[in-house]
């Protein structure tokens, strides 16, 4: 793709060049390839996004650039050039200078990235000291830097230790530290993963603003395609340590030319897609493991377009005019047939049945360091057979506590009632009948925690059938086989232990277990957030299919609004343990909605961004031990109307049939306000 003239120019032009980079990790005495002949260039001032699923090597790229591979990692070939400087040839001192002067890195989990026993200020000033700026001058520079990352009252923050700051603040400090030396190259490795949606939005906004102010080029690494699409000029898609596609972000995401990119984009619930409108597409098979032996195209095993040539011959990176694709059939990549048919049997229209679950006035108060922590406050709702209730909210919203109250794992405060099929449930699990227990089950977020690692899959599912369905012997065997097939596992999975299965398969086992006793309600607590995108789609499809077949109701908890929207008929938005809004899914999403819902929705990075003004929230999520007076949301509410918000807690009032909002602003006024924002030209 490059002629010699261009090659000469790129020296000055590129902030980062990786050429033919190969990296291996030594595991159990064998070198396993993580990056395979990776080449990419990032121009001065450019933001380049690197996307891929877990194990594809994207974090390894970051660590290789700064030469900080784990002890068992080694660069087995290729070259890295940072601002024209060959990083691999640097000696210790030169490498240290390069880190001090030209490259910085921010990674996920800022709580761990900052030194717990040194004050924030000191951690900043030591960077300036490297450049010879000391004492008061360094302090002033540090304050200026904290101002730059929009931290209010920097002098007081400088006096604190990291654990005294919230996650969002910690990440701002980490960004300030990274930018303190005015680097030419800034590497961001999943910088917002693990943060709450509204906090993530703020940090992303900050990064976008800083880009305008600073000259740094950016390597942005993320598993989240939408985040990358909003932040980056160009994007590279990594699969099994190889670049499979690269090009300008907008073009790649709207007109992908590699089957993997095509399939990945189809896996995401997009544009308000719902379960009754069709199934998500999936990617069959599994990601190749680290160090897997790959002969032809790494994606061939999972690609419906692949032929013998794909399996034996590594496709080159085809230059398609400003973009690259590593596929022989890049021209017809988009004709990749679906792995899962989209059409679904239309669910039979159901008569309005009596609610299977009815919750009234449920409260839960924890004692926390002598303070009362109201994790769940006055929650009432009901759920019909075959219906999905989505629970949405950030950390501390009480959604998981609510689920545990329902299941009886945690007893609620006195007073509230939970009725299952018209019969009151005892607050404690021990006091509930066997029939009641089997009628309500759960699929946990993390299958590694939910499945006992000492037991075989057969034992795990068999024991559930024995206890919940009361089956024995032949009948148990028969039902076990049915159940295993219905979650699309096979017999050979039965003999193994959970750790021998991949994340997606483990989650299927957990689902099978939850369905062992023909439950009426299954609580799904973030069932896909530990999974890769390509695996997530298959699990969501499975849940939708099982629901259509068994007429089971779901309580579906997720921080991913796209996923919630896909599965839910009804949505409840929680904030500090209170329901702020509850109503039919489409009404909650399309609005008019509660200002908090509005902020949550606008915080979600979208792939198909139609530039809407983002509603920014001020400040942090308040502590549940000391919730704000009046409306608990008033401290962050962009639509606060006056003292009434601080003094009186608004009631949850029904605005439309079945749609209730807890806000002092009248429904009609909300409609008017939110319409105007939407209509405003970007």
């Amino acid at each position, binding site marked *: 793709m490059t002629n010699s003239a261009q090659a000469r120019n790129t020296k000055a032009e590129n902030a980062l060049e990786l050429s033919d980079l190969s990296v291996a990790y030594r595991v159990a005495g064998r070198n396993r390839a993580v990056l395979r002949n990776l080449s990419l260039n990032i121009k001065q001032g450019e933001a380049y996004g690197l996307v891929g699923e*877990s194990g594809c090597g994207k974090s390894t790229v970051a660590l290789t650039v700064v030469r900080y591979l784990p002890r068992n990692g080694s660069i087995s070939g290729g070259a890295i050039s940072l601002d024209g400087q060959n990083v691999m040839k640097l000696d210790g001192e030169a490498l240290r200078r390069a880190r001090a002067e030209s490259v910085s890195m921010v990674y996920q*989990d800022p709580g761990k990235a900052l030194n717990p026993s040194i004050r924030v200020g000191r951690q900043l000033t030591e960077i300036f000291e490297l450049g010879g700026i000391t004492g008061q001058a360094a302090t002033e520079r540090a304050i200026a830097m904290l101002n730059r990352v929009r931290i209010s009252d920097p002098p007081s923050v400088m006096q604190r230790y990291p654990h005294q700051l919230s996650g969002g603040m910690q990440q701002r400090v980490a960004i300030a530290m990274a930018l303190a030396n005015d680097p030419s190259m800034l590497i961001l490795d999943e910088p917002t993963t693990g943060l709450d949606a509204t906090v993530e939005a703020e940090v992303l906004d900050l990064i976008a603003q800083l880009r305008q102010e600073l000259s740094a080029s950016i390597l942005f690494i993320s598993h989240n395609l939408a985040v990358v699409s909003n932040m980056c000029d160009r994007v590279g898609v990594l699969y099994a340590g190889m670049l499979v596609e690269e090009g300008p972000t907008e073009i790649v995401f709207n007109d992908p030319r590699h089957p993997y990119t095509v399939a990945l984009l189809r896996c995401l619930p997009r544009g308000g897609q719902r379960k009754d409108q069709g199934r998500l597409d999936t990617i069959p098979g599994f990601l190749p*493991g680290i160090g897997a032996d790959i002969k032809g195209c790494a994606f061939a095993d999972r690609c419906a377009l692949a032929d013998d040539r794909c399996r034996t011959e590594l496709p080159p990176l085809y230059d398609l005019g400003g973009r690259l694709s590593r596929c022989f059939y890049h021209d017809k990549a988009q004709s990749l047939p679906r792995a899962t048919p989209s059409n679904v049997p239309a669910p039979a229209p159901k008569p309005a049945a009596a609610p299977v679950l009815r919750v009234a006035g449920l409260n839960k108060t924890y004692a926390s360091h002598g303070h009362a922590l109201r994790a769940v406050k006055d929650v009432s709702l009901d759920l019909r057979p075959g219906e999905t209730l989505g629970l949405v909210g950030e950390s501390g919203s009480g959604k998981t506590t609510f689920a545990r109250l329902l299941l009886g794992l945690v007893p609620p405060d006195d007073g509230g009632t939970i009725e299952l099929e018209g019969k009151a449930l005892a607050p404690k699990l021990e006091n509930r009948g066997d029939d009641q227990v089997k009628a309500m089950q759960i699929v946990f977020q993390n299958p590694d*925690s939910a499945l006992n690692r000492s037991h075989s899959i057969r034992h795990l599912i068999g024991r559930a059938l024995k206890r919940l369905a009361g089956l024995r012997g032949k009948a148990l065997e028969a039902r076990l086989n049915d159940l295993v097939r219905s979650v699309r596992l096979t017999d050979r999975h039965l003999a*193994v232990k959970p750790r021998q299965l991949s*994340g997606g*398969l483990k989650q299927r086992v957990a689902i099978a277990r939850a369905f062992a006793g023909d439950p009426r309600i299954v609580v799904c607590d973030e069932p896909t957030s530990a999974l890769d995108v390509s695996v997530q789609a298959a699990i969501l499809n499975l849940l939708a299919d099982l629901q259509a077949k068994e007429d089971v109701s779901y309580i579906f908890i997720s921080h991913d609004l796209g996923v919630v929207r896909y599965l839910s008929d009804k949505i409840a938005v929680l904030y500090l343990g209170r329901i702020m809004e509850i109503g039919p899914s489409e009404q909650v999403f399309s609005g008019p909605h509660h200002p908090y819902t509005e902020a949550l929705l606008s915080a979600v990075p979208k792939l198909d961004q139609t530039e809407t003004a983002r509603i920014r929230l001020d400040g942090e999520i308040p502590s549940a031990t000391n919730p704000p007076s009046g409306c608990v949301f008033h401290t962050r509410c962009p639509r606060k109307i006056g003292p009434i918000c601080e003094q009186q807690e608004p009631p949850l009032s029904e605005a439309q049939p079945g749609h209730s909002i807890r806000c002092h602003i009248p429904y009609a006024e909300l409609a008017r306000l939110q319409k105007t924002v939407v209509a405003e030209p970007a």
Partner: protein
Amino acid sequence: MSAVQTTSPAQDDTRRRSPLAEVLFSLMRSRTFLVGLAIVLFWVACALFGEHFAPYDPLADDIINALAPPSSEHWFGTDQIGRDVFSRVIVGSRDILTVAPLATLLATVAGTALGLLTGYFRGIVDDVVSRILEAFMAIPVVIVALLAIVALGTSKTTVIIVIGLSFAPIIARTVRSAVLAERELDYVAAAQLRHESALHTMFVEILPNVIPPILVETTVRLGYAIFAVATLSFMGFGIQPPSPDWGLSISSNYGMIGGGFWWTVLFDALAIASLVIGVNLVADGVHGALND
């Protein structure tokens, strides 16, 4: 790679060896483990079959040849009543290798039960029992043993019980903290959602998952049990004469080292050293294999 993506990369759908095979595989690759195992097996063999290849009767005195330095007849010399030191060293592992493992077994069983109960039920049971165990652990084992043996008199059974009960709180603490961590895992909640009994949850669900730390702690404790038995014997509170026990032999001979009769104690000391180090090498190997 990222917080929400905690799954390890999937390769094939049923990848990897079974967990047990992996542990054995890594044990067999560990040089420290193999060396330790060889030493321990050597002394176990001596304990079992020592009298068959010991050149003399370890208990037979021979006053004329008392305190003879090492020679071709008596490789390790003779003690103050002329007993052959080499034969005594060979057979001397027998008592310690009965008492120490039994004490460890007692400690493991009692400690595991206590740890499971306190870790599982938490609350008041845990508070009370843990406080008592903590207080107990603050007293050095040697002193506990000393007091108990003063009160109960000296016998092998007493030594086993004393050391077993002194070590039980330490094992209980290890098990408890492992159980506390396990209890937070969702499979325990899943068991409750099947209305499993507390006993089932403790012994069938949780126990298999805390076996690795118990195993490590047990091997480490075995080392300390040998340490403790030897020390008690040396202090005169452990194994009693005329056993050729190493600690006991040192105790009855060390008064004479000033006189230059080094062979009466050196070989016993080295024997104890090798056995204790061997057991700890094994423990170290097991720890390494289980924590990979």
